[in-house]
């Protein structure tokens, strides 16, 4: 899922300062699952904003609206009846959703209420960790299911670097060293000799380095 973090409240309040009629958007997809921007978090943020502004003597009207998805036109278009009644929209969807809503309603500003952070998994209840950077050329077959691009702080392909100690990364003692995990996995699968293969340089053009990416399925186009 795409994992996000709610922005600090002061930052949100500052962005909303000029407005008194606000559309607060949520999304039923990833940000709901990571407990950042689903209907529940939307209601909590709305309540917080109302309390703060009421206290400041600048009450606001907030419409809470959580879309099934913010990254699909059919859902984004469903905002049409509501959005014009509000001065501004602020969204708890991921960065994709925030931009996409903005593209559909060009006379409105769509402000971010969250910081979109990574593609990750729920490692345990309340804890999310990163697994993928969407580099566009997966090597998980070579590294037996552990991504060096994402999980090594230096994204090195022939690790571990000299800083791997006790299974942990030198950058953060809580983070497992990706290359320790890879070596452990080679051993587990009786494939340690694979470690001796020098992994070639990565072609980063499939990653963000090649510019914004696009995928087209001609057969699905209308």
């Amino acid at each position, binding site marked *: 899922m795409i994992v996000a973090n709610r922005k600090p409240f002061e930052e949100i309040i500052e962005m909303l300062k000029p407005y008194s009629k606000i559309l607060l958007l949520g999304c039923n997809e990833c940000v709901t699952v990571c407990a950042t921007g689903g209907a529940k978090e939307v209601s909590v943020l709305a309540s917080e904003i109302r309390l703060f502004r009421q206290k400041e003597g600048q009450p606001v009207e907030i419409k809470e609206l959580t879309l099934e998805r913010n990254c699909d036109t059919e859902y984004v278009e469903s905002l049409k009846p509501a959005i014009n009644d509000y001065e501004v929209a602020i969204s708890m969807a991921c960065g994709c959703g925030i931009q996409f809503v903005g593209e559909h309603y060009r006379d409105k500003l769509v402000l971010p209420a969250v910081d979109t952070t990574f593609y990750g998994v729920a490692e345990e209840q309340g804890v999310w960790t990163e697994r993928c950077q969407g580099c566009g050329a997966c090597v998980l077959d070579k590294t037996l299911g552990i991504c060096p691009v994402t999980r090594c702080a230096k994204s090195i392909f022939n690790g*571990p670097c000299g*800083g791997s100690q006790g299974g942990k990364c030198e950058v953060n003692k809580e983070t497992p060293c990706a290359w320790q995990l890879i070596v452990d996995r080679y051993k587990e699968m009786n494939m340690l000799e694979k470690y001796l293969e*020098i992994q070639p340089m990565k072609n980063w053009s499939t990653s963000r380095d090649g510019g914004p990416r696009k995928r087209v399925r001609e057969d699905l186009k209308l």
Partner: protein
Amino acid sequence: MSTGSNLEKVLKSGAFAVTSECGPPRGADPEVVKKKGAFLKGYIDAVNVTDNQTSVARMSSLAGSLILKNMGFDPVMQMVCRDRNRIAIQSDILGAASLGVNNLLCLSGDHQSFGDHPGAKNVFDIDSMQLIQTVKRMRDEGKFISGDEVKGRPNIFIGCAENPFGDPFEIRAMRLAKKAAAGAEFVQTQCVFNVDKFEKWMEMVRDLGVHEKMYILAGITPYKSIGMANYMKKSVPGMDVPDEHIERLRSVPKEKVAEEGIAICLEIIERVKNIKGVAGIHIMAIEWEEKVAEIVKAAGLFPRPEI
């Protein structure tokens, strides 16, 4: 093929090599480099010039290498993958070679979070293994990474680093074998304090025959103070400082600590000299360059061979 490297000549002659290092200053004053260099002159075969070590912005390793080269040194320019993409890396290799820098040490580089610019974007377009391959290919095949022809090949003696004390220990010798296969001709190791563990690592290195494919220089660092030993033990990733060393430093009067530090260092040199496959030492006297001459003399490694 031979490069113009003095280090390469010394190693090929079979002599026990001695290198040291010089960290460029956090400023544009060349005198700082010259002053550090003056302490080392005549006592070493080549001098490493660090590349923004610990991710702190400093004078470039290329500029430092050139200042030392002009003083008559054989510089080993260090190059990290943290700050350059493959275009800048190849450009700097050509630049260094054109100015007569004959040795390059290929490193991944410390993570930027350790330095003074933790908010920097890191590059790591390629890693140290792939950097070794790049230099070798440019030199031996006359090819850029792209496959285009290099007109005027960089004649460079290729070095790398390895940490025998990093984890997982069991692949540390294999990793050096990979670096030798990639094209590294010499390695300078992380500081050796735990000689027993280093011996074990060397045994694994010899089992893989790596000592016959590359020259191995053991990293040596004298303890300057108890605080420094503790700092390296606790705060420097991948350092293995035995408790007994700290106890020894504690057991002597305060004014004798530095002396004891040098004594430990000399004992370590004596032991590593006798390990089969060790071709030299690399002395990293951190902010203590003035002690290098004393260490080299006391270790019986002076005068240096003239080849």
